[in-house]
Structure formats: C-alpha cells, structure tokens
C-alpha cells in the first residue's frame, strides 16, 4: 500500500507522452490559441518531469524549478494573448495560416 513504489519510469513515460501530445498539437493545429494551449501542455509535462525527478533524487531544486516554469508560463500567456488580440484587431483572424503577409 505504498504509492511511492510507482517506478520513476512510469512518471517519465507519462510526461513524455504528454509532451509529445503537446508537440503534435503545435505542429498540426492552425488556431493560434490552440497552438498556445499545446505549448502550455508541453510545459506542464516538463513540470511533471521535474517533480518526479525531485522526488526520485530527494532534492528540492526540481520543485523550485517548477515554480519558475509556472511563472514564466503565466508571463508568456499574458504576452501571447495580447499579441493574438492585437492580431485579431488588425486582421479579424486567429488562424496562423491566414497570417501570411510575409511567407512563413
């Protein structure tokens, strides 16, 4: 009855799967907001990796790193949504394939 006996490989596999889902989301979706949500998913997969390594190593540096990743994700969210907003005001779209004044 000890849940700590879950081996670290399981956590790592889960976070690798989450990260991959995020990457696939970024490369296949065309809506800027959804792309951004996929990026957030990638960052959360990384957070999971950090926490499980911190638990595995008995070291709190990984836990602290998660706080910083969260703060960075919040800052990126604010800036990113502001950019999408400015885009919508200029072009009335949030689809990245319609944003092609310069070629991609």
């Amino acid at each position, binding site marked *: 009855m000890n849940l700590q006996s879950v081996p670290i490989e399981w956590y*790592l596999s889960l976070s690798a799967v989450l*990260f991959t889902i*995020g*990457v696939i989301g*970024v490369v296949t979706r065309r809506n*800027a907001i959804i*792309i*951004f949500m996929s*990026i957030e998913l*990638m*960052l959360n*997969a*990384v957070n999971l*990796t*950090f926490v499980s*390594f911190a638990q*595995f*190593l008995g*070291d709190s*540096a*990984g836990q*602290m*790193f998660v706080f*910083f*990743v969260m703060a*960075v994700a919040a*800052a*990126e969210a604010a*800036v*990113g949504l*502001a*950019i*999408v907003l*400015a*885009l919508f005001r*200029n*072009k009335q779209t949030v689809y*990245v394939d319609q*944003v*092609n*004044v*310069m*070629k*991609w």
Partner: protein
Amino acid sequence: MNDFILAAPLVAMSFLSVICIVVDALSPKPGKIPFMFAGFSLLGALLLTIPTFWYHGTAFQNMITVGGYSAFFDVLFLIGGLLTLFAGRPYIAREHFDHDEFYSLIMFSVAGMMVIGHSNNLLISFIGIEIMSVSFYVLSGYLRKSIRSIESALKYFLLGSFATGFLVFGIALLYGATGTLEFPAMHAAVVADKLNFPNLLTVGIALVLIGLSFKAAAFPFHQWAPDVYEGAPTVVTAFMSTAGKAASLSALIPVIAAVVPQTNWKVGMVLAVISAATMLVGNISAVVQSNIKRMLAYSSVAHAGYLMMGFVANNPNGMTGVLFYSAAYLFMQIGAFVIVSLIEKENDGNLQLADYAGLSKRNPVLAALMALFMFSLAGIPPMAGFFGKYYLFIAAVEAGYTWLTIVAVISSMISVYFYIGLVVTMYFKDSTDTTEQDSKPGLAGVTLAISCAFVIILGLFPQLIEKLAHSFFM
C-alpha cells in the same frame, strides 16, 4: 550583502529596469524622462561592470558567476542596449509610436541577457533566456498597428515558446541524469560517470541544443528568423539579431563546459554539422533576397554558424573567438541595421535593394558607413569581422575540424557576393528616384559613430580584446 556588491551590474540593471516602468507611468510628458532614465541606467551599470573584471568567482550561493567572460558579456550587452536606445528614439518617433514602454523593454531584455551571461545554474540560464525572449516578443510586435510587426511577433512568440518547451524539457532531463542543476556539480557528475540515467543525458543535451539553436536561429531551426527580422521594427531587429543571438549562444558556454568533456567527439560532430549547415544555408539564401532586411536576416543566420565554430572547437582559442566575434558582429550588424532604419520610410517603404542604387550621391556619409559595415560583415581585412573569423577558423583547425574551416571559407566567399553587391549598387548604379534623402540621423548618428569606431578599432588592434578574452578561459 557582499553578494549584492559583487553582482552590482546585474542587480542594478534588474532593479532599474523595473523602476523604469514606474518612471514611465509617473512622468507627465512621454518621451524625454524615461529615455534619459534608461540611458543613464545603462551607463551606470556599464561603469559598475569595470571592477568586476578583476574578480573571478561566484555569488548568491553559487547561483551566478562574477567576473571573467560574464563581465565581458555584460559590457557587450549594455553597449548594445545603449546603441539600440539611441537609434530607437528617432525611429519610434518617426513611426508615430512614441510610447515609453520601448525603453523599459530594452532594459528588460538587456537585464535578461546579463542574467544569461552570469548563469552558473541551469535555472538562472532558463530565467535569463525567458526574460530576454518575452521582452523580444513584445518588442517585435511593438508597432501594433502594423500587420507586419504583429505577424512577426506572433510567429516569434509561437515558435519561441515552442522552443522554450524543448529547452526546459532538456534541462529537466539533464537534472534527472546528473541530479543537479549547478554547472560545476554537473561537470563533476559527468566526469566521474555518476549518472542516474546515462541515456537521458544524451537526450537532454540534444533537447537543450535544439532549444538554444532555435533561440539563436541556427539551422535547421532558422526558418522563423527571416520573417521575424523582416517584420519587426528595424532597430529592434538590430538588437535581437546581434545581442539576442550572442546571449543565446553565451548560454551554451557553461552548458558545453559542464556536460561535454573534451574527449566527447559526438557532440562536437553534431555541433560541427549544425554550424556548417547554418552558414551555408544562411549565405546561400541571402544571395537571392531582394529585401535588404531579409538579406541581413539570412546573413545573421550565417553568422550564428560562424559563432558556433568556437563551440565546435571547444578550446580556449575557440571561446576567445566566440567572444571576439560576438563583439565584432554586434557593432557591424547594429550599424548596418541602423543605416537601414534611417533610409527606410514609413510603412515599410524603401526597403528593397534597388532603393539603395545611387545612395553614394544622395547621401555619401551613410553610403560610406554602410560600405564599411558590409566589408566588415564580409570579413575583409582590416575590419573587425576579419579577425573574428580568423580566430574562429584557427581554433577549428587546431581542434582538428579542417573540413569545417573549408566550408566556412567557402560560405564566406559566397557572402562576399551579396555584401559587395550592395556596395556596388550604392556606388555604381544610378538611382531612378531623385528625391532628396533626409540626411539628419539625429541620435542615431551617435549609434553609427560608436559602431563605426569599434569596427575600426577592433580591426586595427584585435589583440586588445583577444588577450583579455583569452585570459578568461585559461
């Protein structure tokens, strides 16, 4: 409290950049006061860096390094910030977008770059890279009424934060593999072969390399660079294609020193292939461009390739070359972009190469300066760019990468074609349009004078910097 004194330039810059937004919010009239505040802050921080040159060590519980190459990068980034500040004031006034956030954003990004240069811990590197990147996302979309500017900000933001995901995942794996985030402890773990998951170390290094080559616009992650550099405001492009690139690559210095022991040729080989491909792709694509900002953007991709040669060599000479070339490249590229920003007209006019025909008659001073920067970028002696390349090539040969040096020489020769092509256009082609060129550079003239002076000084007395830089890596 001793830590605060040791890290004075970094601490001062971080605090003053936050205070700058308060100054901006409280100042009654826009423009003058925040600009002065930002300028004096950068100058003050520049003065504070002088004593740190004679100190080697760490501060804040080993979180940051003080002195050595981080002091050198401090000076470089602060000067870059000052140059951008001077060139930026007339530019944003002309684009009728004179909001004061510009100055605080420049200060934020300089603070972020300094954090990268000082990092002795992967956490600090990550924070620095993010402070810099987030400021750049905002700066590239600064002209928010212009669709090009917003488009470049969107692309930069989406691809940049995508790269952040890879970078931070790589950091997580390095942490798991070595059990620490500190570079010295990491190095000890790698050398002693005390790794928890040896395979994760390789994957971690690969992911960190992907993330950082994204940020530095190296092949095969360079596709965002031309679009972003073309759409962003020209002075911002000048800043992020030089100081931003140097900062992203400076994050590699401690990473490589920690996780790649001298004998590990595999990482060196991967870096060598990336470096060779980057300079070839950058220079060949630059040849066919008709827009000058796009041409310079591709050429900046190529310069990232040259800079990476120093990391491939991974010996004191290589690192010296990286430092010297970062400095030389900063001045010549900022100079070239500032001239582009002066010749550019509102709403992205006057940006084609054809618009430069006959510039030598309309504005001889600008044409002469542009020619100087182009010669330096092409690596023609006795300009700064020549010696930068010379040190990098020598280091690569020393490390046994002769083929890489040959590729670099070939791609330099390709680059001569379009750099000199621009000079030929300016001097030997007649202009179709005879309108008088506005020749008042204003504050941007200061930027041009400083860049020009440094390009010549570094070219005539390269050993000044070379000796200093070499002493950091002995």
